[in-house]
């Protein structure tokens, strides 16, 4: 794209928002986003991610903190003067306007003449691969096509930031993957700094350069997808992103890089102190992902009884009940013949490596 902008940086500086009722929607959020990055705001519903998006767009005035786009503090600007492009979850296309009128709407609002508007709308419709749809009405288009139009409409105003609110939630699975690729392609071409709000961790991990995980209005972790997945900083991140077994235990000894934990399930294992230093004798929760557990033949690891084996295509998941009565899942790649285990079989389990078990101070 000839008019590709470098992409402006976006800084969310200590933003706090309180509802009129006094409840906190988001609390002290700090994000430093470089120009041209794709960022995912990931969290369960009600975690404040949509509120944060609406604060950046200017629809909500935050109680405290600043929003800085490029070099400008935009807090005083109303949404129509922030040049922030938004794709809404339901696309919010204007139902009474044709596709090209929808795309050209933002240009008309800027007083650009009709011929230029039409040319620009056509160029954007070519870009989103809908060159022949310009005269149709939104309701005559499929969901995926409507989303492309919504993207074209948002890009038409050459926004400094592009915000996508749960953009793929309404699409079926195959179409979703196509659109994710499409959005990533358009983002790479235009170089626009992009923020995707989502509750879908796969979407966040696959699309974003960096992922901001939110829970109850607080930023839990802001890092690369592999940081978030492999080196979670909080128990919430560890359990929300990817599946994880939570096993309670007591710290036997600990230093900055490793902790020896006595699991209630009955084994001593080495775990990584993921959320900061751990106190000896303190209770912890150890998180181990199902794919990071292995069956062991010797007396290391903890004992359990197989409850059920589920062959899930490429992997087989075994449900194991440990000595303290809690359930643990272990997932194995399906290599060669399927290894299903008899229900009631006694097994011993251990983490593949100490760095793959994360210990967090137990919250009461």
């Amino acid at each position, binding site marked *: 794209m000839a008019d590709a902008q470098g992409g402006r940086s976006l800084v969310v500086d200590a933003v706090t928002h309180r509802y009129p009722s006094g409840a906190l929607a988001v609390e002290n959020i700090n994000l430093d986003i470089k120009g041209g990055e794709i960022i995912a705001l990931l969290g369960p519903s009600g975690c404040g991610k949509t509120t944060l998006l609406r604060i950046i*767009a*200017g*629809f909500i005035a935050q109680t405290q903190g600043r929003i800085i786009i490029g070099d400008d503090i935009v807090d005083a600007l*109303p*949404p*129509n*003067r*922030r*040049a*922030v*492009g*938004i794709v*809404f979850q*339901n696309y*919010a*296309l*204007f*139902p*009474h306007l044709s596709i090209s009128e929808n795309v050209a*709407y*933002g240009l008309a*609002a*800027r007083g650009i003449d009709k011929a230029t508007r039409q040319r620009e709308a056509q160029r954007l419709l070519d870009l989103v691969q809908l060159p022949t749809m310009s005269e149709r*009405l939104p309701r005559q288009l499929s969901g995926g096509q409507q989303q492309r139009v919504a993207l074209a*409409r*948002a890009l*038409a*105003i050459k926004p400094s930031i592009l915000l996508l609110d749960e953009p793929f939630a309404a699409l079926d699975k195959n179409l979703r993957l196509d659109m994710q690729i499409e959005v990533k392609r358009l983002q790479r071409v235009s170089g626009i700094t992009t923020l995707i709000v989502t509750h879908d961790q796969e979407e966040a991990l696959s699309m974003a350069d960096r992922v901001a995980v939110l829970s109850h209005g607080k930023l839990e972790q802001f890092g690369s997808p592999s940081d978030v997945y492999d080196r979670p900083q909080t128990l919430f991140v560890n359990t929300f992103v990817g599946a994880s077994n939570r096993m309670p235990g007591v710290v036997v000894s600990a230093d900055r890089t490793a902790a020896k934990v006595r699991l209630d399930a009955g084994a001593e294992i080495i775990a990584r102190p993921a959320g900061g230093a751990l106190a000896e004798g303190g209770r912890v929760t150890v998180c181990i992902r199902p794919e990071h557990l292995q069956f062991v033949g010797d007396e290391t690891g903890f004992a359990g009884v197989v409850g059920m084996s589920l062959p899930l295509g490429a992997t087989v998941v075994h449900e194991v009940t440990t000595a303290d009565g809690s359930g643990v899942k272990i997932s194995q790649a399906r290599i060669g013949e399927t290894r299903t285990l008899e229900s009631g079989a006694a097994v011993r389990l251990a983490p593949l490596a100490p760095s793959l078990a994360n210990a967090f101070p137990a919250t009461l």
Partner: protein
Amino acid sequence: MGAAPASRDVTSYRMGLAAPLALFFLVFFVAPLLQLLWLSLHNDTAAVHWGLGQYLQFLTDPFSLSVLGSTLLLGAEVTAVCLVLGFPIAWFYQRVGPRLQTIIILIVLLPLLTSVVVRTFAWIVILGRQGIINATLQSLGIIDTPIKLLYTQFGVVIALAQVQMPLMTLPLITALGRIDSNLDDASCSLGAGSWRTFFKIVLPLSLPGVIAGCTLTYAAAITAFITQSLIGGGQMLFMPMYLYQQASTLQNWPFASAISIIFLLAVLAVVSVFTTLGRLSRGYGGA
């Protein structure tokens, strides 16, 4: 075509249920209307001689035409006042909390809960020579002598607008409520100010409600016999009263019938103009 007999059965079943209403309409609406038409096609009051004399008399009489004209104009004025006042109420309603919504709905519906006669007499009290408005203006020293509000076109329009307001506001509230609030945000984020958003998005999408509200208000305003007569007094004559005088006082039934038919056609013409306007604009209901 295996399903055809079944579907025909379902249809005939439904038609059967509509029969009582159809019969009611036939006896109490279609039959009287045909009788009216039959009557209007007679030149004498005894309805013996056939002819178009009554219609010719109405259409060549400047006085009759002026009554028709001022009635249609009255309807237009009342509709305009209701639209201009009702739209902000409906717009406001969609943007406030549920408690305030209940209060607004109550205020909007209140005129419907009291008798037309009572409401009209209230307006006489307000608009009269010693009424609330004149008394207030005089005590404030703004005017020396009472201004004439009662028995004026202005008075009739204001009173009718208040009486017919729910007919405008309720369809508008429904129409505005159907508009996705994300469209407002989308328009705003694309750089449009509130006026552009209103004229390009909100107004076009609320047109079905505007058309419905205007049609109802217009039809109600021009046929509002009681309010027109009481507020307009003897000095202002509108079609319903004209019709009443011809039929009841002068016993000229054929002429009264002709007036009815002409009035009916004039109203149908105005309503079809509203409908066409709605169809021309590309609202939801359009294409």
